[in-house]
């Protein structure tokens, strides 16, 4: 089934979050660890989402 919330979230992720994050992480004058910050945040987002799914008894 089409899950509009998931699709909207993915669209937002692909069109807004990832390009901006990528730009910030790879900025020429930025610290070398910036990409890992973005990566960590994404993992945290997935963790929150999975915890919510577990709480709502989805699967």
């Amino acid at each position, binding site marked *: 089934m089409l899950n509009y919330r998931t699709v909207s979230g993915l669209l937002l992720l692909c069109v807004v979050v990832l390009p901006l994050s990528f730009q910030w992480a790879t900025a*020429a004058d930025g610290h070398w660890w910036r990409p*890992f910050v973005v990566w960590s945040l*994404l993992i945290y987002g997935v963790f929150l989402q*999975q915890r919510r*799914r577990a709480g709502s008894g989805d699967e």
Partner: protein
Amino acid sequence: MSSLTVALYAAAALVAVAALLRWLLQPRRERLLNLLLPLTLVASHGVLLSGGVIEMAGRYGYGGVIALFGFTLIFALSPILLEPIRRLQRLVRFATTVDFLTFRYRGRAVSLIASAGLVVVSLPLLQAQFIALTDLLEQLLGDYARLATSSAVLLIAITCWLLLPRRRREVRFALMAICGAALITVTALVATQVALPSFGGLAALNDWVISSGQQQVIHRTEDAYPLFILFIAASIVLPGNFLVALSDRIKPAQVRQIAWSYPLLVLLVTMATLPILWSGLASQLDSPLQGYLFALPAAAGNGPLSAFAALAIIATALLCSCSLSALLARMVINSAVLPTINFATIANLNGWISRRIVNLAIVISVAAAALASAGNNASLTDHYLVSFVGLAQFVPGLVAASYFPNIGRNGFLIGLVLGLLVWLVGLFIPLMVGETVLLTGLAGGGLAASLANWPLWALLAAVVNVSAAAIASALSLRSREERFFAHLCMVDNVYVPARVELSQRSVAEMQTALHGALGRAAEEELSAALAQLGLDRNEQRPAKLRQLRERLARELSLRLGHYAASRMLERALPISEQSLANGAEQREDLNRIESVLAVGSRELTGIASELNRLRIHHLELLEALPVGVVSLDNHGEILLWNRKMAELSGLPRERMVGASLADLPADWRALFEQLVASQQLTINSHPLASAASKRWFNLQKSTEVLGDDDASEQLLVVEEVTEAVLLAQQHIDRDRLASIGRFAAGVAHEIGNPVTNISLLAQDLRSELPCAEVDTATEQLLGQTQRITAIVQSLLRFTRGDSGGEQLELLNVAELAAEAVRLSPLDAGGQPRPVDSQIDPALAVRADRHQLLQVLINLLRNADQASTSGAPITLRGVLDANNGCQLDIIDAGSGIAEPLLPRIYEPFVTSKAPDQGTGLGLWVVYQLMRNIGGEIKLFNNPTAGATARLLFPKPASQP
């Protein structure tokens, strides 16, 4: 480091691992083992995370980091991306990518080509493990470096032989988890204990990165996009990933845990990689970048850490080779060997398959090692990149399987083969033999088959693959089977199992057929499937047998591969020819979709959720109907059996849905068959006699048959009308008796006067002609007129109803019965007939004494005449459930003929000889009991004789 030191470290590590393994494999650690699954995954990627990642960071800068980020995305997004395939696991279990592709695109060619292709594209991965292992052994063995290659081959073969047998599965997973944990730990330790201290801390490292120009180097992202896409694509197809991400052995909680824990572990490794890389560069190590994890602590003189790193790298390479080659061996055996084998001839099928997987895995590993030895000395990253481009050739087929139903088998195979050919020419051959110039342009430039051009070749292979698949699919026709399975695999498809008809009619028949095809393994498979479904061996319901076959197909697919399992089942448990001819997709098992929706309804959103609510509402309405509803398909299978129907029949819904009409009790089966076969749409007041009582039912069937010819359904509605029928019968009986009464009154009045005259004339004749002959004749004449008079009196008494003059009083039943016995001339062959009185002495009724006495005398006389010589008459009087009185007069005669029973209260109806009774006794009793306010019931006893049951209402004075 001396050889002795190496040996000591290795021995210590082996002891530590053995102790940890023993602890992990204790029964109560199963839960912990499940939590270690992400670590197992880390180890399954082999030396990519121990050496390849450092080299990628050095070569591609952030491109390498982004590639690894993409590599983990498949698990982070698996709840969305892999859901279509995971949903199919309810129907069939996929052990490998090849199984899924074979299920979708059908045919042995798909199975063979896909497994062969996966073996070829995975060879560089195995080679990478071998290269990393050989390089490390060369450094460790020092003077004996020449032994490195043979040692590596031997180690790989021994590992496969030791760990791959089926019974060692748990040990293998536990070892991989330990290995993954060791790899992450050693990477973190080298970064924090060696790399960072070599700069003097994090701030100093940052300063060095800027001053050395590494900041510009690491910020390179020119190859980031192709790397990102390539790693995402490869991670879907990678055999180990497919097994973990889609295996239904993994619980939903584990899937949720892996979604974030596995990317976190890879992030930790990758983050530690950069300090190690820069420390190695700053130290100007003479080792290649891929060897820094070992070389850096070794150069720093940290013996324990370098030994730890060496052992982690060796273990990772060995376990990756072992597990990957086993998966490839399994694909090849499932595709090429098992479809040609007669399983019935194999005593131990599991052992047989396991042994062949081990042997073939060793062959594949050694072949990869041989190719690597003769190869072009390419780096680990090159091997991984080449392999990943090859794996990516399977992605169009996988994506099309769930999203593009028009891509058929020919399109998939042609696209895959052409894509792999481009990959072979452009990347695999250069990996083996070095760069080759394929075309030379006018200006001297040209297209070179070179690893440096991997993005170009990857793009070319993908374009060729997709274009060929689309064109070939457009130009070729697809079979009905292909279209059916293409539709089945669609992401938005709701799977509705087909209502096909099996050739077997019982579990026993299925067991016999399965034994013929599968040998001894049949019993084990059947028992497991029955236990999973909660069925017993006496099961005969067609729907449950279909479910059992599906479950067997699902489990056997995992063990034998989809192609071999489906072929074997087609032979052993075939679907009837009629079902095949009609097309399975036409008859859907709606009860199965009902159960699927009942479980998964929480996943529905939007309009689907609203439709589901509507479905539930309609279902509840159907269940709440005050009439029984049954739906039958054209093969007599019961599709619907609502709550009221279960109540009416006493047959529970769970037992009846999916059963055949033939499984019903004989009376219900005959009734339904009569209605279905009848031209009439209704059957009214049909009696069904059960052990307890007789019941009547009205039945109707739907005027139009639902569905197509073959998928038709007939709706039957059943309504119980027992109460109405009984009331109507009572009404009819009363009307009939009332009209007979009126008729009798007229007859009695008209006959009375002539009979009196005849009697008087006979008496005159006797007095006027005194002779013997006249005396005899007049005596007979008077006797007959007295009989007529008695009949007339009875008729008149009945007509009057004798209801006007009765005097109601409270009478003791036992005493009255004793008086009736005394007054009745009961005779049993010249002897007084014994009467067994079992009347409660306190039992009392309110009635007219003479009328009740008359009733009892009439009934006792009937009982006496019906009883055989010497047989007693039993009188039994008790209080009934309503505090009324129940008095039974029970004889031991031959009973009343069944045809006579409905008419027994009518006048002149008797079973006695004409000279023994007038047929008015019971008629009078019936009328008198009505006057009293009671009731009489006459019925045959189960053993012998008949019972006249008098029922009196509760006396007004009785509490």
